[in-house]
């Protein structure tokens, strides 16, 4: 059912994040080796490294692409307390110490944080070029590039104090220009006595400030990752949270006297799914393009996928697991292997996909 292509990432240490550009044609990886690598896939589907540069002086936690309307732009955040914005430059040869055929230049260094910057995300392009970061000291910072054609100029527009250390954030991607922007922030503070660990913030036009709408008190365990799903026209916002288990929440805006007066949205929070399939801490959550499948990874070493069926209930649909004993030296089968009786081209130039083996398992995966 799945086939895979292996790309040798050549980082000297574990990869912390993999991000694709808007079209899926370019890939950026970042690692504890402090490097960021950019990959492109050629016309035959093979991925090659086109750039590699030392981005920070500490582990690079996250890397993310801006919308292509702004050009070829990346943002990274690191243990070294900084975040940076990078742009690909045309025509120059790589600088010293850099490999590859493309050249990435640091456009700005955001040094406002006094602790590790744990997450960085570009805002929805409808609002211009904005960037949000969050840090272990519990501060969320919103930056903006007033002139989108000049990426060296960024202003710190807002600093939002969150009481607890922040580990992750997510912009709500599907709001229209008329609606106020919304951010979800998660904290990995380990003390349940400190209350809810997911916070929803909204930008109020009235007060010109980011205001907290909601603290989701039903989630008190540390939160490691959080993500809003793209909206297919639903009346509610869909939020996935990675904590001691997988949580899926519906946030429904309600109209009441209070919200009309204050100008702030009132949200009704409903937990629609809770999955303990990982049987351990969940580290990451990630939505597919239509927000219909959620991929999660956890301490059981697996990636699990959940899908919503037509009656709006969520069900696990597949599991991915690493296993070294199944390593074969050569890919066994290629995807385009069906001949039509005529000469086929040699396959060495094209990307080679091999089928993944599978095992059927009963729903409970033993703890290991």
């Amino acid at each position, binding site marked *: 059912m799945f086939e895979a292509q292996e790309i040798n990432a050549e980082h000297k*240490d*574990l990869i912390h994040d993999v991000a694709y550009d808007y079209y899926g044609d370019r890939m950026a990886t970042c690692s504890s080796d402090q490097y960021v690598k950019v990959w492109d896939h050629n016309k035959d589907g093979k991925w090659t490294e086109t750039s590699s540069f030392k981005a920070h002086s500490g582990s690079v936690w996250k890397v993310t692409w801006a919308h292509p309307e702004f050009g070829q732009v990346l943002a990274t955040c690191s243990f070294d307390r900084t975040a940076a914005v990078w742009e690909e430059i045309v025509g120059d040869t790589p600088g010293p110490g850099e490999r590859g055929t493309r050249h990435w230049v640091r456009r700005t260094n955001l040094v406002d944080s006094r602790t590790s910057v744990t997450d960085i995300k570009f805002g929805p392009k409808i609002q211009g070029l904005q960037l949000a970061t969050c840090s272990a000291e519990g501060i969320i910072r919103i930056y903006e590039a007033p002139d989108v054609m000049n990426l060296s100029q960024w202003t710190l527009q807002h600093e939002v104090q969150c009481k607890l250390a922040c580990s992750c954030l997510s912009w709500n991607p599907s709001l229209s220009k008329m609606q106020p922007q919304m951010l979800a922030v998660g904290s990995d503070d380990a003390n349940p006595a400190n209350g809810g660990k997911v916070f929803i913030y909204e930008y109020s036009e009235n007060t010109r400030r980011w205001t907290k709408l909601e603290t989701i008190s039903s989630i008190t365990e540390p939160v490691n990752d959080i993500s809003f799903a793209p909206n297919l026209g639903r009346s509610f916002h869909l939020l996935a949270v990675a904590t001691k288990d997988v949580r899926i929440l519906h946030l429904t805006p309600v109209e009441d006297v209070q919200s009309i007066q204050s100008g702030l949205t009132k949200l009704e929070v409903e937990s629609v799914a809770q999955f303990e399939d990982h049987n351990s801490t969940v580290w990451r959550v990630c939505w597919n393009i239509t927000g219909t499948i959620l991929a999660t990874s956890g301490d059981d070493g697996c990636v699990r996928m959940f899908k919503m069926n037509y009656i709006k209930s969520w069900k696990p649909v597949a*599991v991915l697991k690493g296993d070294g004993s*199944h390593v074969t030296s050569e890919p066994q089968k290629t995807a385009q292997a069906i001949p039509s009786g005529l000469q086929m081209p040699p396959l060495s130039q094209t990307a080679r996909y091999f089928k993944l083996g599978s095992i059927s398992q009963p729903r409970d995966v033993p703890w290991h």
Partner: protein
Amino acid sequence: MEGDLKTFIIPNDLCRRTGLAASWTPINQMSVFAYEKRNVRQKDGPSNFASSQPSSVFLLRQHVLLFQPILRKLVNESNGAFLNLQGVISDKTLDHKSELLKLSRQYRSIVRACLEDLQDDITKVEGEDKETLQDYITIFYSIECIWHLCEILFVDTIPGNIVLPLLLDWVRFHFPKHERNAANMLSGDLIGLEANPEFWPTVIGSLLQGRVKVVRALLKQHSASDSHVFRLVDQILKAMPVYNVFSGTSVSEFNIQWRHWTVDVQSKIDAKMFVTSPNLNLIMRLVVGEETAWTEIQSHCETWYELLAAWLFYTEPTVKIFEVGQFAKHCITKMRMRNNMKHLDRVLLAAMEFDVLQVIKEIQHMSENGWFVTHLTDLLYHAGKLSNLEKEVETFSAEKLHESFLLDYGSLLMGHKSLWQVGLSYLDFCPTEGLKAIELILPRIPLETEAKTQKILREAKNRELVHVAQSICKVQGMKSLKRGRLGNALTWALKSQDGPFTSFLADKFLHEYTKDGKLASTDLLDNLGSCMLASDRLIFLGKYYEFHKLYQSGEYKEAANLLVSLLASKIIPNYFWYVLFIEAIPLLESEEIVFSSNDTYTIIHCLEEKEDLPELKDKIEILRLAAARNLSRALTYEAQLV
């Protein structure tokens, strides 16, 4: 249908040791990599896995059967049928029932054409490929078989609900062995046909498929066909009543005739009139529905539904469509299949029991792509077979189910390089979520060439997704800029109606001029036309170019007028003032007076305002002098006119 969850193995030891993380790509792929969560509070340093093993990123995608070249035809052909179906539904003047039946047959013939291609190809390949093709053949054979039955039970109109004739057709179609053998035998050497080892199996097989005439024809070729027992059997078979709903006979009348005939045959059997030929005796015992006889011939049936149709023909010829289910279960039990029912069996049983929802659930798990379930559900939905369920099953919504399949299938296709247009056509028929899904996915299709971009743009515009179209134009503009194609970038910027971007590009033109002294892309600037109005900067650029052209062609007076109007406007970029001033000098000093006194005042005024500009430092005195001189000349000249 929760059943077993499949676990897929990533063949990598590092992944096993550290754990996995995943990241989706647009559109339908996912990358998976070895991941270990680092605690940000820990000391930052190389992890335990540093340098020990190369880390890999695995790019995963669904292996979709339909994308294999040999099966791809199916996708487009069936898309054609799908669109026809939607067209039929929206046309209120047509008889939907008969049109839907035609379309169902069209779908089936598309599947059969696909099977033919597979059969052709399997002869040309070896080894693993042969196995793969064989798998495909099995899958599509099952699909056609199920579809055919569903067509009979759910789409077709069955006169009087007497379904047996159609069921028999269905079985005959899918088990053609006996017909072939019979045809071969009857067209070959006819003497002593019984010597052929296939003779009696074919006779029994044909009997089981209700081909009584063929049975008689075969028996006539038996060397003993003239004997009494053979002739008796022939008479009996000839006299066998066969129900025909159009004959005018009522069901009860027919049953009486049938009863008489059966009793007659039974009495002959009891009188041991057929014992001389065990085969003929068996035949007679079968046609009266004797249980033991039927148990004996079970081995002739490959499947329970073969047995079902046969047994019904000889015991319940007027069975009604909704009674078939219970008889089906009976046959399954008889053939002891209850515990090893394959997928296909389960689907067919569910269909016979009119459990449409179960049919759909089972089909969903037949293959990893939604081709079958999407198209069949769409057909059944429009045939009204799903809406009945809404009353029976709580929380069931036929529309939502229907839409969810279309959405999944359409999204799947949109991730394919070539089939994205087909995907769009399915998403178009998702009433609540289709347009939004298109809005999310369409802009993600890589803009490889301008030709492809134009096609994507067209799709966006057709659905009035204006902001998607504009965004695509902007991205194309940025790409052209990156390639150093300023003129092309400006063209795309204008199409995207992005004011700031247009201004930015206009600035680039002007900056280049200040550096090189040449205006690039003059062919573009020649015919800016009304789109100049997109941005002030562009208007300035256009007008400045006009000024340039007038100057080059010696029309100094017009050029001067334009220059003055530019100076008086508010649209001159700061960095360009000194260029305009400098270019004013030759005009100020020209023999012919081109600036009126008013004009000159304007120039002087602007000069005063902008005297602080650093670029003007050396030139400002010359300018003041030239302006003053021109002023005096102009004033003198104008005084004369008075």
